[in-house]
């Protein structure tokens, strides 16, 4: 009986923290540009705009919350927005997968060089913000074309998607983050007593590494998947804006204040819900990837 209550409580907590709280947060966030304003040299709060959330939920039943004015056009949440969502999913999915699949082995290879010059250079690159890296990549592509006359990569979206530069820019930070976390964790684990014990028993370095050190890192990697998803989502906002990629974050940023009617609360809430869905998909897929790798390891 107690076990059943425990499971129910656990589920309710999981549901609250993973769905209800983020939903509340999205409604609050979308109404903030209307709530906070300024006039006569003071910050003004118009709390009545908090009630817009109620209107949005009511509008879901008659469909009014799911149609928006974008320029001269009427858009619907489930007709026009999914292609933009798919574009963002494409970039975030690939770059987060690269982040894990490249970052983890890179971190393992470099854990003994944690205080080396090359590690410091990698840390420095990791501290350069995404927008700066994107501008550097774009400048590099422009000057390459000016010098050689050849187009290395597309620097913004025209009729088709730019692939190379956005994927480099968006994968760089997840790769460096996962590599850094893995290196630090591997260095820490390699100092622990059970590793010393394994070595003292005569187990070879290679065997200790693969059978004791690597499995000890997988729970940490699994916990880091949420952070990787957050990093990639932060990058995609900047990348879509600077490469002019027609993704869901780009349309949200560019059309939230258009349509002749000022700020479009319904449109912003719907876009934020799409972004939240993206986060859930990416973090779940990455977690499955890590768990899958941990499961397969048993058969190696």
């Amino acid at each position, binding site marked *: 009986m107690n076990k059943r209550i425990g499971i129910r409580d656990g589920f309710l*907590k999981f549901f609250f*923290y993973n769905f209800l709280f983020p939903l509340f947060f999205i409604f609050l966030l979308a109404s903030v540009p209307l709530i*906070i304003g*300024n006039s006569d040299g*003071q*910050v003004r709060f118009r709390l009545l705009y908090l009630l817009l959330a109620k209107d949005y939920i009511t509008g879901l039943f008659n469909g009014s919350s799911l149609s928006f004015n974008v320029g001269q056009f009427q858009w619907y949440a489930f007709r026009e927005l999914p292609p933009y969502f798919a574009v963002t999913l494409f970039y975030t999915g690939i770059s987060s997968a690269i982040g894990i699949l490249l970052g983890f082995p890179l971190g393992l290879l470099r854990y003994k060089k944690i205080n080396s010059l090359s590690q410091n250079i990698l840390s420095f690159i990791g501290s350069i913000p995404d927008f700066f890296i994107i501008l550097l990549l774009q*400048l590099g592509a422009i000057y390459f074309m000016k010098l050689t006359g050849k187009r290395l990569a597309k620097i913004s979206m025209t009729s088709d998607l730019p692939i190379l530069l956005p994927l480099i820019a968006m994968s760089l930070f997840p790769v460096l983050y996962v590599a850094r976390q893995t290196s630090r964790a591997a260095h820490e684990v*390699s100092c622990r007593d059970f590793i010393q014990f394994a070595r003292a028993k005569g187990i070879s370095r290679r065997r200790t590494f693969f059978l004791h050190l690597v499995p000890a890192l997988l729970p940490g990697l699994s916990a880091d998947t949420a952070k990787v998803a957050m990093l990639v989502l932060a990058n995609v906002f*900047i990348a879509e804006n600077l490469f002019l990629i027609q993704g869901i974050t780009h349309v949200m940023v560019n059309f939230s204040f258009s349509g002749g009617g000022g700020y479009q609360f319904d449109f912003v809430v719907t876009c934020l819900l799409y972004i939240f869905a993206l986060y859930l998909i990416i973090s779940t897929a990455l977690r499955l990837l890590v768990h899958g790798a941990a499961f397969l390891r048993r058969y190696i």
Partner: protein
Amino acid sequence: MNREFYIGLVLLFLLVMTALFGPRFAPFDPGYSESVRTVVVDGENEYIFAPEPPSSRHPFGTDIYGYDFLTIILYGAKYTLGACFLIALLRIVPGLIWGIGAGMKKPSSRKMESAGAIPSFIILAFILSGMTFNTTMGTVKLFFIQTALIALIGLPGVITSIQDKTWLQNREPYIEAARSCGAGPFRIAWRHIFPHLRGATFTIFMTEVISSLNLIGQLAIFSIFLGGTIATQSPPLLHSATNEWMGIIALTRTSINSRPWMLFIPMTAYLLILVSFNLILHGIEKHYGKKYGKTPFL
């Protein structure tokens, strides 16, 4: 300390001097612009339109409105550097007090992880948009409100980091020994844990300086400039009220294809700050890493 730390410190000192005394040596007034000027070439008048590439009159060139880049860089430095340090300070002081206090007990698991789906700069952009565009508040007042809000959004991360580090120290045998000798939580926190966190505090402070610099840059990409964004309807143009460096990068990025040289000066200035902060951070990490580092067995 080590060489990296001192090089970073010297570089930072030069940047701080530029921020403090630079405007005195600026060649033009920050409000002065030359959208078009004439020069005499072979006895004939020639028109030069903004943006001008670097020349003897404008060593760093001008922007698309004719404002001298050197002047706006010198005037904007104090806002860029000031904001970074102020934000980091506003995070580290309460973060340290709160983090050590909370770390005396076992930290609870992170439950609201999903809220991180929306990046912090987007949350800030939503909060700041209403007060930043064509603000009726003074530039300085808005600057302090913006820095306080940027500091606030990063505060939970600092608290969590210090809390975790405090909890790790709290489990060490020497703390248990102090407790057995009758030391209270305040004495343990002040006399035993705080001195051990000194290295971590410097590291977190510098990390927060860098992260706030990056956050200000990300906000600038969405036209949220420190001190205010001046937006005109016809023609639809944006200006930074303070000329802070990230705002200049964001405003000149539209010229990346036609006049890429315009980005060099603000981007180099930004890179100099980043390099100096990183050198100091690595210097501190190296120093404390050598002092407290463990030996790997593999």
